[in-house]
């Protein structure tokens, strides 16, 4: 093959011999497919300069070092939980990233960028017409049936002026390089393009893996693109300091991680449908301080699901009345609901004509040839060429549909073919025929060799006050299979970062704006109720896990300490087990089990709702639905905790179990240290800490009731001091040895002991005092009343009078407090909003 003989003789003479040899080995073995363009090898058979530069420097890393660099960097992917989810699966998958980026030269790039910018303008113009006067349809430039077949043609938005004046904030085109060497558009993304956040993450990983290479390669930076996007969104609002929210379908969405990442990067509030309400034509976020205006929503929820009242009534993801608010100009939703109509393949064939008509320009980047079979000439052509063209559905279909992606007749089973042909006869308008084009390949590393892989490049255009701006880079997916149009993240595809190489050194983009434009703020707005709820429960779960671990630790040490074992063989041991059963860590049947078995069950029993592993999973789940609020460090500690506990199920001896408990406790204390020292002291931290304090208060009441009752033994009290982490203080304070009253005082009433009930109540008081109240009428809200009552009782109590029923009363008051906090601050009633349907038909 010509390409290979040429490339085999090329290399770089400025490299050390080992690197030069590796480079020429790579190039010698690299075999692009015949007749298909390749990104590394140009049409003349020579490697492109910018690739050669990159590969040369890349070859300079010794084999081992390259591997360790890349695996260290992908470890970051695991640690920070970069993931995606395949639709319908419970588990998230780790992110598969290629070690090599896709590299594009500046000249190449300027063509792509011009094509995508033009297309974004064209899309905006078509939307303005379709939802406005619809002259394209009226004049016959576009058949009505090519529009109405799309589930994203939102009729309720016809004639509605989009708040902010525009339909598209973010547009993306999926591109491939055709056999003629030009870039082609395969698909348009106008609904809510995904992947921009993954592009950011890919860039982060690669620039960390090869910092020198990246810094010397003049790679264009991404930051200013996102800054422009933020300005574009702010411009859509009618206020100066708009509250911009990213509306997500929630943690079960395929790309939730990406949405959370983007929200955090852009500084937007991540909200779900339940977080929002519409009142009198405006949208509001439910926060702990009541309803607060939402000015702009960047949506990742498909249009049909946005408003159960006017659109799909079964949707749980939307906001009832949202379309009404858009009509009233009370919220800007971008992309505007209905923009997705332009994703229909039925429209592709009309675009060159529409571009001439609406922009007066020829399309710079062609799309892959597409014939909508709702037109008789096109249908006849597709029927004639049925065996050579690909068939696809003309409009967006759910992922399960047989023609959601283009397919060749030859790939259909006999039965599929029969069904298809009948359907095609009855309803040709449901289909398009598409030219089958094999698109260009880019090098990937497989087993140390360089091999060509098919790829699709997604390029983004964001609206900014200066017009559409193109992200210099993108989101690239590569496939192991030669047909690149089958690529989606569900099919063993990988992603690659996209490097656009400048001729000249790139300017370091800084996101610093001029000093006087930014008003200093110390509080980041009101905490949404959902986030408060999640943080509160995260605090409770983590504290409960810690308390359970302390119980298990005592169980183990009592077994290992020969002297203690003498005493604890009896009652104390059974009280410990009782406490574990009471907390749900052990099942009833476990009573009387061997202590070491009980310890293992309390850690690992999947059936017990209160076992440590279940509590850690609950923490993980809760944390996962507010990822944008947790630091990467916090997240990676949490994942680490879960990994460690799920690995240790085969721990046999009590020493193994103890070892595991100790290390879990260490991670938990690191987590609590992190939240004390590294979380800013806004409302979010207060809810996390309130959850922790209430849980700790409840636990100390339970422990004290059980272990410091009137019939307590020395061992019981000793154990209580262990659990309350108060051995040292106690021994320093009381020389007489362990006695009932001082132990009770220390566990319950002593305001200086950080584990006592009194201490928790003090902390809770300061939290509640710092939180906003709904009304300015000076009246106490319910949580304050319960807490002040309880605190007054505890402060005035004497340890000698403290009996089981009083302690039970304290515990119950804490539970009431928890409910009152939920009633006051969290989403109440949001989940009880059934759609009323009338059933009165004859």
């Amino acid at each position, binding site marked *: 093959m010509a390409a290979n003989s040429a490339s085999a003789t090329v290399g770089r003479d400025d490299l050390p011999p080992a690197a030069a040899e590796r480079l020429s080995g790579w190039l010698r073995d690299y075999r692009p497919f015949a007749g298909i363009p390749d990104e590394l090898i140009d049409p003349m058979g020579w490697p492109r300069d910018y690739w050669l530069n990159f590969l040369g420097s890349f070859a300079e890393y010794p084999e081992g070092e390259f591997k360790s660099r890349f695996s260290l960097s992908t470890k970051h992917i695991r640690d920070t939980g970069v993931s995606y989810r395949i639709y319908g699966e419970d588990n998230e998958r780790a992110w598969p990233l290629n070690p090599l980026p896709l590299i594009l030269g500046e000249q190449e790039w300027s063509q792509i960028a011009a094509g995508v910018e033009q297309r974004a303008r064209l899309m905006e113009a078509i939307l303005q017409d*379709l939802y406005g006067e*619809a002259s394209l*349809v*009226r*004049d*016959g430039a576009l*058949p*009505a*049936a090519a*529009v*109405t*077949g799309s589930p994203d043609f939102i*009729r*309720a938005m*016809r004639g509605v002026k989009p708040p902010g004046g525009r339909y598209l904030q973010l547009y993306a085109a999926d591109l491939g390089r055709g056999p003629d060497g030009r870039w082609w558009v395969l698909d348009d993304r106008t609904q809510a393009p995904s992947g921009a956040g993954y592009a950011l993450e890919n860039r982060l990983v690669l620039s960390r893996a090869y910092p020198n290479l990246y810094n010397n390669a003049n790679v264009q930076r991404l930051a200013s693109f996102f800054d422009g996007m933020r300005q574009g969104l702010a411009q859509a609002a009618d206020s100066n300091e708009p509250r911009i929210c990213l509306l997500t379908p929630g943690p079960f969405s395929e790309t939730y991680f990406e949405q959370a990442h983007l929200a955090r990067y852009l500084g937007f509030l991540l909200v779900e449908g339940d977080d929002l309400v*519409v*009142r*009198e*034509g405006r949208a509001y976020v439910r926060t702990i301080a009541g309803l607060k205006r939402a000015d702009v929503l960047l949506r990742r929820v498909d249009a049909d699901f946005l408003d*159960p*009242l*006017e659109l*799909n*009534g*079964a949707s749980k993801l939307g906001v*009832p*009345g949202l379309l*009404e608010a858009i*009509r*009233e100009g009370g919220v800007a939703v971008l992309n505007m609901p209905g923009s997705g109509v332009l994703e229909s393949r039925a429209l592709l064939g009309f675009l060159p004509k529409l571009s001439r008509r609406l922009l007066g320009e020829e399309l710079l980047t062609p799309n892959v040839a597409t014939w909508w079979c*709702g*037109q*008789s000439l096109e249908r006849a052509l597709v029927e004639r060429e049925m065996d050579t063209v690909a068939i696809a559905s003309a*409009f967006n279909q759910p992922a399960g549909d047989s023609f959601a992606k283009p397919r060749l007749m030859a790939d259909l089973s006999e039965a599929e073919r029969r*069904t298809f042909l*009948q*359907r095609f006869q*009855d*309803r*040709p*308008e*449901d289909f398009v025929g598409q030219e089958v084009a094999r698109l260009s390949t880019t090098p990937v590393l497989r087993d140390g060799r360089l091999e060509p892989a098919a790829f699709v490049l997604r390029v983004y255009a964001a609206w900014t006050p200066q017009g559409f701006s193109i992200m210099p880079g993108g989101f690239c997916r590569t496939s192991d299979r030669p047909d690149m149009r089958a690529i989606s993240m569900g099919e063993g595809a990988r992603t690659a970062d996209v490097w656009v190489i400048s001729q000249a050194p790139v300017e370091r983009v800084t996101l610093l704006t001029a000093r006087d434009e930014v008003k200093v703020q110390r509080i980041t707005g009101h905490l949404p109720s959902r986030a408060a709820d999640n943080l509160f429960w995260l605090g409770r779960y983590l504290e409960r896990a810690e308390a359970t671990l302390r119980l298990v630790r005592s169980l183990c040490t009592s077994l290992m300490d020969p002297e203690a074992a003498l005493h604890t063989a009896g009652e104390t041991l059974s009280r410990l087990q009782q406490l574990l059963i009471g907390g749900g860590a052990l099942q009833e049947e476990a009573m009387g089990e061997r202590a070491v078995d009980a310890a293992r069950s309390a850690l690992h029993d999947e059936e017990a709702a209160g076992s440590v592993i279940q509590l850690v999973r609950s923490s993980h789940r809760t944390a996962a639905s507010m990822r944008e609020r947790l630091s990467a460090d916090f997240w990676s500690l949490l994942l680490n905790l879960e990994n460690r506990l799920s690995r240790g199920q085969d721990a046999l001896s009590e020493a193994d179990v103890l070892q595991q408990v100790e290390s879990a406790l260490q991670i938990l204390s690191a987590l609590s240290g992190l939240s004390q020292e590294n979380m800013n002291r806004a409302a979010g931290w207060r809810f996390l800490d309130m959850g922790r304090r209430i849980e700790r208060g409840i636990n100390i009441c339970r422990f004290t009731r059980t272990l410091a009752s009137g019939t307590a033994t020395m061992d019981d009290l000793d154990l209580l001091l262990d659990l309350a982490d108060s051995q040292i203080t106690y021994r320093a304070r009381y020389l007489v040895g362990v006695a009932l009253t001082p132990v009770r005082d220390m566990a319950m009433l002593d305001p200086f002991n950080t584990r006592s009930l009194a201490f928790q109540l003090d902390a809770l008081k300061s939290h509640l005092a710092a939180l906003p109240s709904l009304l300015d009428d000076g009246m106490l809200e319910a949580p304050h009343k319960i807490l002040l009552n309880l605190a007054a009782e505890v402060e005035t109590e004497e340890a000698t009078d403290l009996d089981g029923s009083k302690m039970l009363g304290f515990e119950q008051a804490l539970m009431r407090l928890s409910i009152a906090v939920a009633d006051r601050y969290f989403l109440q*009633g949001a989940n*009880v*909003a*059934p*759609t*009323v*349907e*009338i*059933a*009165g*038909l*004859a």
Partner: protein
Amino acid sequence: MIYDLRHKTTYRYGAPVAFARCVLRLTPRDGPWQTVLANEVLISPKPAAVLERIGPFGETTRTVEVDQPHRAFVIEARSRVDVHARLIDANAPSPSWESVRENSLTSPLLGPEGPASFLYPTLRTPITPAITEYARQSFWPGRPIVQAAAELMGRMRSDFAYDQEATDVRTPAAEAFAARRGVCQDFVHIMISGLRGLGLPAAYVSGYLRTIPPPGQPRLEGADATHAWVSLWCGPDRGWVGIDPTNAAFAENDHIVLALGRDYADIAPIDGVILAPGGQTLKVEVDVIPTNEEDRLL
């Protein structure tokens, strides 16, 4: 024929409801076949806000917010409508159904007046081979469309059993089709699925039907009901033709149109969400009174 219409819906809740948001589509539609002479909608408790607009299918829509706690929600619509529809002869010449199909694909009308919106499947009217094949038996090559549709509605009337227990408002068309039983809503969804399966534009019509009491008996107050039927586009010249598969009759002067959409969900008379923990009960009363009767409502 002039009718007085009363359509009263009462929701009673197990616990007080703090907030309700509803969309009401209770104003009959004007058209060449009927003229709305009067319409009012009474709502209790008094709403905090009412917004009126024309919906995507030409229907008058009221969006209502109620923000005071209430245990009952009553919506009563009263209308007077003059119905002057064209009478339909199944055997009069009409275009072949295949030519209607071609015409609907090239239509330059994007709005509800044109056929393009009614060609494609919806959640409640999916296209399934079984229903399409059932419909196809009446649509042989070249057959005039009105004739074919009339035969299909006749077949449905004899093949399907009217059974209020068999289905509810959420039953999918395919299920009711397999059971061969249901109520008017099911028959309409099935017929629409079948017609669209053949590439024909068919709409869902909600409305009222004049009921004639048995001879010698007075009309029972509130005993009428809402009704549904199909409207089929029969080419640019014939336009829309109303077909009632429940009664095997064309929709003429006994049928009063409330609204017209792709399926029930587009034009349900009342859609709403409430914030409430408890259960609810629903009562619907309908009166359809030709105005030659004495007891006029307006």
